[in-house]
């Protein structure tokens, strides 16, 4: 593989109105090529209506070491959850 290639993350929107979902990553030399490769790799069975490609280095992500401080504190604050709320009649999903 060429050292000139960069890693891109691929997001595909299945239908109008839905969100773009992360489907995988690939190597390409530039964004245009990444878009073409995404088409060939991820939507060849008509999975998509729109593609985003983002260079992976632009994604700033939380780390495994952040778990303690980021997420665990939410677990003991049930008043923030809607789990105990009684749904009005006729509402099936909330």
């Amino acid at each position: 593989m060429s050292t000139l290639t960069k890693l891109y993350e691929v997001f595909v929107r299945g239908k109008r109105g839905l969100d773009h979902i992360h489907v995988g990553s690939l190597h390409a030399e530039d964004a245009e090529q990444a878009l073409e490769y995404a088409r060939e790799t991820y939507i060849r069975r008509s999975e998509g209506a729109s593609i985003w490609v983002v260079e992976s280095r632009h994604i700033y992500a939380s780390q495994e070491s952040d778990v303690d401080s980021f997420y665990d504190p939410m677990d003991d604050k049930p008043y923030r959850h809607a789990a105990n709320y009684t749904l009005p009649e006729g509402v099936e999903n909330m």
Partner: protein
Amino acid sequence: MSKMQADTQITDVAEYALALGDDALVLGQRLCEWCADAPLLEEDIAIANVGLDYLGRARMLLQYAGETLGQSEDELAFLRDAPGFRNLLMVELPRGDFAFSQVRHYLLDEFESLFFAGLKQSSDPTLAGIAAKTDKEVRYHLRRSTQWMRRLAMGTQESHDRTQKALDELWGYVAEFFILTEIEERLLADNISVDRRNLEPQFKTSVGTLFDEIGLIQPSDDWKVVGGRLGQHTEHLGPMLGEMQFMQRTYPGLEW
């Protein structure tokens, strides 16, 4: 139109479809030769995928030709010898290096984008339908091969040199794009075929503009090789068919 003229026209349409199908079949095979051998994994998937576009196109055209010729698409693809093929010579040339394959593809894409836009207007509804579907694919292929032309010609000195060399080696096969066969001339009368002679100025303008932009020199027109549409082929088609047809020749009637 007399009965005899009508019969001639039906055969002409089948031969026309056969020639267009052969272009797609042979190029599809050449593209699929890159499968598992392309410069990077993503390109491997992409180039084989485009090859499959051509096989899909070949199937539609060979099925249509076969209805009149009394043969199945498989018989036409796998049991004909080289002189029975009617493809343009450029598509049968060995794949060469990556630059050669991409320059060939680019030249064909520029031609096909003009040709299938024209064939969409054909008075033959089946050909027009196939052309409408193909036209969309060709626009994508052209976008892809144009990107590769830029990347290769303006990449490194080596990629530039290889691209220029490929263009020099391929240019003499371009002349054949614009030569009409007698069959096509007869079909022009009823607006079934495309007058390929008229496509040449637009083709030369399009490729010339890109060559100027990316620093390639358009070769001179001092040599040309023609004859594919008449069944006169280079020495490269036979060995390719040998590989492509091996399975059906060895196990006649074999199915998936």
